[in-house]
């Protein structure tokens, strides 16, 4: 998918002015509220008309003020999943799902109903009214409804923000299936750096109506580490745990990590902030932190006045955040060996 947008749109004092071309199937749109990201996707879907400019998707002109083109939303084949599920309350789950499917020209119908129902695990409640579903179920139905419209592009406008934390991470695998199982390119809109890394490859970052960065989601997270209250969040893929001294021992690469939180013998994902890692130049003989890993420094980077240290630990990558004085005192250079410590309580499990 290739998308190019060169548009201007003003609402009172706010102006969105962007000019970019982006290619890929998993695109992220990142920004805080008021950055213009929702306006941008509304323009792309045809729900908001720009003042001037041009919007083209795979060479197809959707809007052009010069050529006098403004394709109606229903002619664009761009489906959308909104922050609130916005299901039709007068239709049951099945008819909500089929709403876009019935209106999709037969030649574009590549995703069929039964496959979608199986992938999104919706088969248990097809005949139920949508008002009786839980928040996560509603969002899955909304996602399914958008996918079944067989769009050429799917816009997901903060689809997780109305959900609580545990549900959020339960929905992510379903959202990922959009591109993995159904091959639909998408734009994922969010203000969360973690969600960006889970959902997007290339990210466009917006601030006050202007595109400020176009980079990979990983690079964006590193660039924003110094400004972020929670630092850089290391996402760790953990194996099945065993009990050890009242803690959970998770295999992690060629090593293991001791966590004070855990789930019942299932492989999991955990978060560890770059701020919660302490570096030692030499092996400390005894420390209270339960995790001490011998690492090799791969690189150093500056982010908002803080120094990010990219470490290779047990076959995995870990980012630690320190100040410049610490870099000097520890004599950290790429290739040097260093010890990284993290308390067992510093990890946060992501729900499965």
């Amino acid at each position: 998918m290739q998308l190019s947008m060169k548009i201007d749109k003003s609402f009172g004092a706010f102006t969105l002015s962007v000019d970019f071309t982006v290619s890929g199937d998993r695109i992220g749109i990142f920004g805080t509220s008021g950055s213009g990201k929702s306006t941008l996707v509304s323009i792309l879907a045809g729900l908001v008309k720009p003042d001037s400019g041009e919007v083209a998707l795979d060479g197809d002109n959707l809007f052009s003020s010069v050529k006098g083109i403004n394709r109606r939303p229903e002619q664009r084949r761009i489906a959308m999943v909104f922050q609130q599920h916005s299901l039709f309350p007068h239709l049951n789950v099945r008819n909500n799902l089929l709403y876009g499917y019935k209106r999709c020209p037969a030649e574009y119908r590549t995703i069929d109903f039964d496959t979608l129902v199986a992938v999104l695990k919706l088969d248990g409640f097809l005949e139920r009214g949508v008002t009786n579903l839980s928040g996560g179920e509603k969002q899955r139905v909304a996602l399914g409804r958008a996918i079944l419209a067989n769009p050429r592009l799917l816009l997901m406008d903060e689809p997780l923000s109305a959900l609580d934390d545990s549900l959020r991470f339960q929905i992510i695998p379903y959202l990922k299936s959009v591109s993995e199982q159904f091959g639909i390119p998408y734009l994922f809109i969010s203000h969360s750096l973690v969600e960006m890394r889970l959902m997007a490859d290339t990210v466009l970052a917006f601030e006050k109506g202007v595109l400020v960065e176009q980079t990979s989601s990983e690079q964006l997270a590193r660039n924003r580490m110094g400004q972020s209250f929670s630092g850089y969040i290391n996402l760790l893929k953990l194996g099945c745990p065993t009990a050890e001294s009242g803690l959970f021992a998770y295999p992690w690469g060629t090593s293991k990590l001791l966590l004070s939180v855990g789930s019942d013998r299932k492989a999991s994902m955990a978060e560890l902030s770059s701020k919660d890692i302490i570096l030692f130049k030499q092996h400390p003989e005894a420390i209270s932190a339960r995790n001490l890993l011998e690492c090799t420094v791969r690189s150093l980077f500056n982010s908002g006045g803080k120094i990010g240290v990219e470490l290779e630990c047990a076959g995995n990558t870990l980012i630690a955040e320190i100040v410049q004085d610490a870099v000097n005192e520890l004599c950290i250079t790429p290739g040097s060996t260093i010890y990284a410590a993290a308390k067992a309580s510093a990890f946060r499990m992501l729900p499965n």
Partner: protein
Amino acid sequence: MFLDTSDIQAIWLTIRLASIVTAILLVVGTPVAWWLARSRSRWKGPISATVALPLVLPPSVLGFYLLLAMGPNGPLGHLTSALGIGALPFTFWGLVLASVFYSLPFMVQPLQNAFESIGDRPMEVAATLGASPLDTFFTVALPMALPGYLTASILTFAHTVGEFGVVLMIGGNIPGATRVASVQIYDHVEALEYAQAHRMAAVMLIFSFIVLLALYAWRPNARNLLRRG
């Protein structure tokens, strides 16, 4: 018998009038309400005010202007003459037309409220799923506004049944053609037929009570709609 033939004739005429007016207003009121709910035009204010006029105008004022408009020298009178229908005043269809104007806000305002409460989002979702504006209206807006339609229909029907001033101005008092229940009661009182007036009045009272009871049972928050009316 509880009611005599002329009473039953008046009641039947009233029901016929109210049903036809409600049916016409469902068709006419829907696009007006939809436009008022969705438009950001500078004409929205003047149109809203025009639609609401019958709420505040004395029925005699409305009746007077409609009488002039429908008369042989009025624009509507010219039109009906040209179409070969003849003059509308003092006919049943003249009464229907007058009632359509008189009950317009009772149809439009609840529908407008219903459409406004749906908001833009369901329409936007439907559009991104490939539905045209007309398709969206019939498959999303209309079903979601159904409770509003029920309220609007009940209010319009009941309000038309309760008309008196406009009926007298436009319809006069022709048995079987324009003498509706409210006028029939007036006639009974004029003729000092209090027993018959009592019976007709009781029928109207019970009818109105049942209609309102049904409305409240269906929508407990209907009070706001009635207050606006």
